[in-house]
């Protein structure tokens, strides 16, 4: 099974003997066929699934990752406390605010810095904006793999309004680099709030009704996705699923609710769960979270307090460790940050939700039809930048 790194030293041992040895060899040559789903497949992204099929049935799936490895964790060690955010946000820049918030909270924990309340609220607004942007692409992508590309275009129109708001706030649309240890970098001006409200208005009044009408209770969509890739509650916990995929199996796990960070403790929202645990349930969870996020943004804008938005963060941070979980768009994102008393992080370990979902996928893809592979793959809502880091 795949590659494994031996613990002693850094020698790489490749074990690929199992599939083509002994009695199985004849079977493999006669019946089983290995297909490469990806790297050039339009739905797979920069990653490859080795799919063994027996006729039309999938026997085994082995993900082959590493095409977008950027060594982000190592690069952070060469940065200062402030400018490490540019590497952290590139874990997946579709929702870059969540990762920056997690890293900043971890750094503040070690340094013992308390963030002003206004910064907490701005972080909440930005995080939810990032979640909406990410979920919109997730929705469009899920129907995109089924062969319909209209919802992706609709989702991109709604996403554009949020990107405009981010540009007014920070000066860039995607790689914003706007949340630093010690607060947020820019003042939330009136124009930013205006743009954010207009974006949420567009989402709630134009996008959601139109999308609900066509792509939510859609019979064709249900035929393709209902009862496919079913994960029961116990198995979801056992496999270590994260984010919307876990909530679709009936586990009400949400870091925002369980261990509130930034301003989530003061806001009123519900955790979306579904009982079915199939691909359609995962799609619906993403959809309902989108609506919930829009409400959170409205609440946070109403409750935005006056005052400072950034405090001074020391250049040298005392030695210490911190582990922080944040509810990122794709699930629980963990940051283990270690300081040795220098001007920058000594080590940063990122626990990524997409990586957890990816290794649960081969279990779910046993004995399904080949045509269901893209549906299950897209319903798990993974980001390749996040898998490889």
């Amino acid at each position, binding site marked *: 099974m795949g590659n494994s790194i031996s613990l002693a030293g850094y020698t790489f041992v490749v074990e690929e003997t199992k599939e083509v040895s002994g009695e199985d060899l004849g079977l493999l040559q006669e019946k089983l066929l290995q297909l490469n789903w990806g790297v050039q497949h339009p739905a797979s992204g920069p990653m490859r699934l080795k799919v063994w099929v027996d006729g039309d049935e999938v026997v085994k799936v082995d993900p082959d990752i590493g095409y977008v490895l950027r060594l982000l964790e190592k690069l952070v060690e060469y940065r*200062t406390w*402030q400018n*490490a955010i*540019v590497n952290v946000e590139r874990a997946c820049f579709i929702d870059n605010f969540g990762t920056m918030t997690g890293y900043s909270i971890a750094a503040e924990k070690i340094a013992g810095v308390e963030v002003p309340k206004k910064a907490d609220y701005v972080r909440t607004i930005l995080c939810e904006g990032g979640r909406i942007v990410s979920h919109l692409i997730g929705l469009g992508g899920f129907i995109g793999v089924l062969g319909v590309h209209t919802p992706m275009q609709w989702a991109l129109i709604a996403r554009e309004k949020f990107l405009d708001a981010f540009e*007014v706030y*920070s*000066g860039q649309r995607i*790689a914003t680099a706007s949340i630093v240890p010690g607060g947020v*970098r*820019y003042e939330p001006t009136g124009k930013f709030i205006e743009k954010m409200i207009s974006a949420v208005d567009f989402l709630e009044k134009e996008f959601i009704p139109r999308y609900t009408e066509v792509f939510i209770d859609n019979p064709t969509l249900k035929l393709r996705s209902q009862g496919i890739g079913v994960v029961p509650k116990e198995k979801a916990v056992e496999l270590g699923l994260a984010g919307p995929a876990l909530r679709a199996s009936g586990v009400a796990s949400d870091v925002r609710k369980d261990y509130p960070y930034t301003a989530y403790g003061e806001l009123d929202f519900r955790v979306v769960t579904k009982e079915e645990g199939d691909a359609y349930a995962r799609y619906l969870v993403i959809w309902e979270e989108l609506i919930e996020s829009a409400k959170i943004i409205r609440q946070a804008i109403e409750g935005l307090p006056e005052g400072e938005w950034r405090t001074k963060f020391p250049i040298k941070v005392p030695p210490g460790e911190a582990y922080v979980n944040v509810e990122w768009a794709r699930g629980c994102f963990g940051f283990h940050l270690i300081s040795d008393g220098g001007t920058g992080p000594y080590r940063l370990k990122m626990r990524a939700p997409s990586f957890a979902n990816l290794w649960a996928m081969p279990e779910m893809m046993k004995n399904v039809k080949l045509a269901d592979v893209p549906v299950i793959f897209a319903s798990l809502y993974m980001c390749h930048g996040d898998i490889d880091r």
Partner: protein
Amino acid sequence: MEAKDALKIPFEATKKVIRVTKALFAPKATEIWWDKGIKRELHYRGKHIINAELCIGCGMCSRACPVNCIDMVPTGVKKPRAVPKVRANECMFCGLCEDACPTKPEKAIKLTDHYSMILEDVTWDKLTEYVFEPENLEEALEKAKKMEELLEKKKQEALKKKQQAQQAKAKAEAKKEQPSLEKGKEEKPQQGDNSQKGSKGEE
């Protein structure tokens, strides 16, 4: 409602006619956008502007840069010992140099809303040569040199005064020694006067 709609029809029709005629006589389907001077929104992070007069040469921007694209170029004068030079090809426009700049109230290094950075006949050499340098560097250097000259003049004047004062002191002491032999009680106030003169010369 119907009456209002009916009123709107001629307006919209004329609008459409104007749009179509414009499109008919327009030379190209695509527009050249970069010389139109489009204003970006607040906080846009574009081309750098470096003010050499404000710069104190501390090098904080160079340290804050995550991609190490800011070099500190030595100037030869004392006040801004070095000024930043941004290698534009490597810059990622995060704006952390602007945050790190300690000058108040105006920052010496700033990101403006200029986003058009077009090079013609782009080769690797040209890209590596493309840098953002301080705009008013020569003026600032001249000013700094003048300031240095002024300071040196003042120093020399001060030195001269000091020397004169010392000479005067020495003379006064030499004079005092003779009367002091006669009147020992008047020594102290006279010495105090001399020391005051000396301190003025130092200033």
